[in-house]
């Protein structure tokens, strides 16, 4: 536990001390603000952040692989994986610690978008319902956790940050496109299976204020499963350097 906390702290402080962490956060803030300004601040429309959450969740498919790509790949490249793997910390605590660090960073990265909520409240005749907004942010954290776990897995499999990013990005974006575009064109039962794994409809439900435990369980189970795979991938580094 102490090792996982130490690793989480280090990951978070590393992202806050390096330009990459600030660039990613600034880029995400810029894109989400642009979407908010162009589509949500539409005069005459109801005060709702549904479109914002849908777009912000989709953007995470690009941003989260960039955040997580360095987690283990960079450690392997720089040689800092040596002291890490020869420390008493278990593989599981290394993965959980690093994942927790980038998840905490993501929470901080989402924090500035609360200014958009404040703006919407300020400019709306009728204040927006807080339930969908809270549920929407919960959905963003769940989606971010899922993509970060995917990025942790790809980062554990390679010593190249670029490969780790590309693999996580292609899987995440491919899944988004596949579930939205491919599933309706496939015969049953393949269509249902693929549609059942879709992320966007779940985010849409959250953005309507529906916190369905099935959706929550979906994200938690997949995140945990990907972290288990990442732990196995890290353990395999003890067989070949």
């Amino acid at each position: 536990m102490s090792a996982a906390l130490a690793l989480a702290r280090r990951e978070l402080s590393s992202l806050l001390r390096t330009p990459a962490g600030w660039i990613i956060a600034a880029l995400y803030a810029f894109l989400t603000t642009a979407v908010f300004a162009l589509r949500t601040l539409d005069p005459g429309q109801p005060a709702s952040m549904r479109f914002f959450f849908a777009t912000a969740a989709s953007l995470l498919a690009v941003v989260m692989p960039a955040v997580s790509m360095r987690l283990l790949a960079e450690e392997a490249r720089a040689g800092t994986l040596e002291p890490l793997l020869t420390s008493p910390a278990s593989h599981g605590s290394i993965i959980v610690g690093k994942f927790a660090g980038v998840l905490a960073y993501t929470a901080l990265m989402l924090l500035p978008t609360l200014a958009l909520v404040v703006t919407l409240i300020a400019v709306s005749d009728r204040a927006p319902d807080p339930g969908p907004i809270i549920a929407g942010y919960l959905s963003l954290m769940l989606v971010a956790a899922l993509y970060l776990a995917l990025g942790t897995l790809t980062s554990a499999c390679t010593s190249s940050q670029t490969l780790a990013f590309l693999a996580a990005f292609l899987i995440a974006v491919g899944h988004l496109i596949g579930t939205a575009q491919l599933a309706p064109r496939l015969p049953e039962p393949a269509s249902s299976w693929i549609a059942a794994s879709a992320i966007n409809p779940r985010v849409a439900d959250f953005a309507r204020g529906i916190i369905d435990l099935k959706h929550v369980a979906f994200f938690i189970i997949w995140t945990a499963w990907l972290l288990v795979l990442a732990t196995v991938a890290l353990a395999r580094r003890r067989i070949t350097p």
Partner: protein
Amino acid sequence: MIEAFDLHKSYGPAHRAVHALRGLSVSLRTGTVTGLLGPNGAGKSTSIRLLTGRLIADRGTVTIAGRDINREPARARASIGYLPESAPLYPEMTPAGYLAHRAALSGMPRRGRSRAIAATLSRCDIADVRRRRIGTLSKGYRQRVALAAALIHDPPVLILDEPTTGLDPAQVAQLRALIEELARDRTVLLSSHVLAEVEQTCDRILIIAGGELRADGTPDELATRAAQDRPAIYHAEYRAGASRLSDLRNLPGITEADETDLPADYRRITLRAEPGTPDLREPIAAALVGCVVRELTRQRPTLEDAFAQLSGGAPIARRTPPRSAKHEPAATS
């Protein structure tokens, strides 16, 4: 403190596997500094990675401070302080922050960490840069930060891979003194390409080549072993009315003898004896009775010779200025 038995490790698919280590067995006691030598590709890095638990052996066991590294990995690894070859660090962290991070990773209780960090910073002479970013430090400082990280949890076993890389001569001497101090109640394994450093620091030397342990002994024992298979060479400088070359050439065991004239009527004679011949300095001195002898030495094989012979490879880098061999002065003159 470090026990390794029948360690095997190969890389790659089974049909074209590269065997990096073939049956390494060693036992390293507390209170000794052991040097690990070997040419590039000999299996040194693999050995260190297996001993530190970084890699899992295909076969064989490693026990650190009585704990099997595969059965009790956390406890065994908690007993190791490891300085990897490239001294990997996080450039954005400060030395104090990095030591706090490593202390937490090693499972040190929160209470006492601050004191341990202060003591280690001071011991490794990096207290003055404790708040500077590691990325801005010189190579020597970074090396010492990495060493401090290996020492922070006060481990009973230290494994140091090229610990003097980037250090200046004064820092090398300091580090040697620190290793000697640490080794009093610890097991220290040191891998280095600098033979002079190994010779001066280590009580025992392991030579690995082709994935196998080729030699194990004190520096003197290894040099003596090398001497058994090499011709002994003697040098003498003397002044006499007539040359003594023919007398010296007839000494038992002498295979070659050369003489050159030096200024002031001195002559320099070089004698080569068969391998295994007993020390000939006394018979040579006896043959030179009546002469003024200003030098009589026997050229002894060095650790470098022993390394080249026992590893079957070329000699590796020296730090000291090149000198072909050690010379023992004559017992008589």
